[in-house]
């Protein structure tokens, strides 16, 4: 049996939640004060995911960096691999918001898209 400690992010209470797990099965959730906390804890221990937001190099644009994000949240442990892939990549102006800049980022199956438009220089 494994115990996982979490802080709930749903409200400023920040309940300290303890999830007891047996393999992938959740045995118990303790410390939460509401149902939202229970759901958060279950998701967070099973599949913690985060949207990565960063910047990417642009060539031939009026600026040489623009903001971008993973279109969907990626597994938490993949954050730095995603960053590495974005840091190596670059795109070419013009770029519109939502344009796919990296189709499958770091093997997550999730694309990186532009969050800012850039015109050619």
């Amino acid at each position: 049996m494994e115990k996982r400690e979490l802080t709930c992010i749903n409200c400023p209470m920040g309940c300290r939640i303890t999830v007891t797990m047996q393999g992938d099965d959740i045995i118990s959730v303790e410390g939460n004060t509401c149902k939202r906390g229970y759901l958060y804890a279950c998701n967070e221990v099973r599949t913690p995911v985060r949207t990565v937001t960063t910047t990417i190099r642009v060539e031939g644009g009026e600026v040489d960096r623009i903001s971008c994000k993973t279109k969907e949240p990626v597994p938490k442990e993949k954050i730095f691999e995603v960053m590495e892939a974005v840091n190596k990549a670059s795109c070419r102006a013009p770029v519109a918001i939502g344009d796919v800049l990296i189709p499958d980022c770091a093997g997550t199956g999730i694309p990186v898209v532009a969050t800012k438009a850039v015109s050619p220089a």
Partner: protein
Amino acid sequence: MKADIVIVGGGPAGLAAAIAAAKEDNTLDILILERDHELGGILNQCIHNGFGLHTFNEELTGPEYAARFESQLDELGIRYMLDTMVLDVSSNSVTAVNSKEGVFTVECGAVVLCMGCRERPRGALNIPGLRPAGVFTAGTAQRLVNIEGYMPGKEVVILGSGDIGLIMARRMTLEGAKVKAVCELMPYSGGLKRNIVQCLDDFDIPLLLSHTVIDIKGKERVTSVVIAEVDERAKPIPGTEQEISCDTLLLSCGLIPENELSREAGVEINPATNGPVVNESFETSIPGVFACGNVLHVHDLVDYVSEESGRAGRSAARYVKNKGNGSGPVIKVKNGAGVRYTVPSSVRTSELEGDLIIRFRSGGVYRDSYIDVLFDGVSKIHRRKPIITPGEMEQVILKNEDLEQAPSEILIRITEN
């Protein structure tokens, strides 16, 4: 130059106010004056997500959120001028300067103040030590990293756990810097819980509550900072000093509404918010001058800025259309125990658009307490809250029909259990 409404500032507040005013009356000539090279204000550098859940029912980044408003602006044909700094404001004119027009005055029917806020700098925090390079406010560092594409440093200590500081802790970490600690003077964080978990805990960055920076070392560039624990009176406790080597100190120690123009115009300022005193229409003490967004009171969520600014913009449009204000009884909104301020601070029922939202902040942390609303001393709302903190804005919604009873005073207070 002439315009019906001049909006001072093209950030989230100014954009929402302009759009709402144009939608209220599409014959109005609305002009936004923006000091930066682009619209969107601080949203441009807030490349993280979490914006728009209330407004668009989806999670957007700052630039995406701004772009949604900018495209509406274009559809509505609203005029704007960039790189234009407003110098002077009155109820019927705005004077500004840019490189094309020089100093010019726009005569107008109403003004909406949307200047936003600035960060409290090192100097205002009385942090001792030398004055080397490498000390930045978190927002300046955010601009350098996210817009200019430059790294302020590689070993970072952050003072203050405001949201921008937390967001920058993650951002600097993602860009390869080592964030060694976030120190918070108070025994609680000023930032959102979600940011503490996703920006600090995710990356094992320690949050040191009741800690402050007591010395900055390094003659040319920061070489280290000395931190110490503080007592209940926020005084450093001798013997708890710790030197942390770093090349960068980021400060996230509070935001100050930028009301220099408002003050010079004679707008009454609430000392609790450092923003104008406004009524239900977001009108200041000067008729025809409205205020919204962070210039009014510092918000945690841009969605609330947009919503309030929409009301301010519509009010300005009606003010111009009706050539002035309606007159009706005025209800005072008072802050009682535990409440630092309320926005608005007075209400004219005749001018309400519908239900009335009153937003406020508490003066401390309250657990398992009640938010009470009293009409002339009679309880109207008695709502239990598991937690109330100064870091999160609270609100109560008063039904329009309830207000028709027109009390002379509304009191909001926190009652401890």
